[in-house]
């Protein structure tokens, strides 16, 4: 068994994830400014320090950049970088759990592969 604290993850990580998701879906486009910590803080009633901590994760991941006196902007190429990161994490995030659950249910490898194929073709 593995730790999975996603349901009640630290708030700053959730902030980072939500903004990352918004960049990935182009709600926040590359080169544009993202909402300020104050805006996010007010909207969701989260302490600004928490919001900032979340945003700083995205800065160190290279998805956001600080422009002095202006605020935070989505880095050009952030979309591709996020995709790359998520592809890397796909195995840990999805495959490992899928196999674990399949084993609990005594589903053999061939059945899982078949299911994946079916899902892929139907998707």
């Amino acid at each position, binding site marked *: *068994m593995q*730790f999975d604290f996603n349901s*009640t993850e*630290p*708030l700053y990580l959730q902030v980072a994830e939500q903004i990352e998701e918004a960049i990935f879906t182009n709600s926040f486009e590359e080169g544009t400014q993202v909402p300020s910590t*104050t805006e996010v803080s007010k909207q969701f*009633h989260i302490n600004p320090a*928490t919001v900032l901590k979340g945003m700083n994760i995205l800065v160190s991941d290279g998805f956001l950049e600080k422009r002095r006196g202006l605020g935070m902007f989505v880095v050009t190429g952030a979309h591709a970088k996020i995709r790359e990161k998520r592809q890397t994490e796909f195995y840990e995030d999805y495959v490992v759990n899928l196999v674990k659950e399949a084993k*609990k249910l005594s589903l053999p490898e061939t059945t899982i592969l078949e299911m994946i194929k079916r899902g892929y073709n139907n998707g």
Partner: protein
Amino acid sequence: MAKLKPIKINHVSKYFGKQQVLDDIELTIEPETIYGLLGRNGAGKSTLFNIITDRIPLSDGEVTIAGQPVTDNDAVLNRIYLMSEANLYPSRMRVKDIFQLTAQLYQGMDMALAQTLAEQFELNMSTRFNKLSTGSRSIMKLIIALAVDVDYVFLDEPTLGLDANHRRLFYDALLDSYAKRPRSFIISTHLIEEASNLIERVWVLQNQHIIIDESTESVLNKGFAVTGPTADVEAYTAGLNIIGHEALGNLMVHYIYGELKGDRPIPDTVSISHIDLQRLFIYLTNQEVSTDEN
């Protein structure tokens, strides 16, 4: 003004007659930080606020800023505002005159903000204080607390008597005001869920003592629910700081506060998740003797 100094609460104790309400309280209130003071009814939250703001005398210890005791120290008390249930205003005074009076008593008040908030909360500034409903009185005091020019704002149950819309408006206004002019807010509240995301640091007052004084993040990091068949859960949580449990037939949940054993294998049948501040608070303050630190 010069860089702000924290408020230090040094070994403060308080007795009412023979009954001890606070025992050897030690806290530091840093500038520009939002604190949450949690405690059950009668735990002494209001007493602690009243002592820090010099409304009532302490029995032992001292409260200082930059080494100066706050007791009878107008220069320091000018920088501190306490919003509480007590109604200290002349009953026939109008709201706008109360605002003016407050501005004179402290170092000023943001009248433009007060006016905007009064409009948002639909508070008529021409109404006399004794004609205000309980909710409107709370609103008036909140507006003062947000608009008055001080560095430390104590809010004792600020949302008491406010409906959901006004509570939301209050949190909006609080964070807006905090962003524009960072200062310390110390909030005591029963509505833990609503406030928990605002609070940077948590204090829990229980049995005359502060049993938790930590960042919200670190408190939440230490709270776990361990769920599974009773025997497996008990085997896993043996020796951990179990603060509560719930059983549903053979399905057991142990609530833990503190470190898990990293080297202990987690059985396949057991799942572990974090718990929210409200639940953590309930279990921590149900305990007779709290063991908050390992």
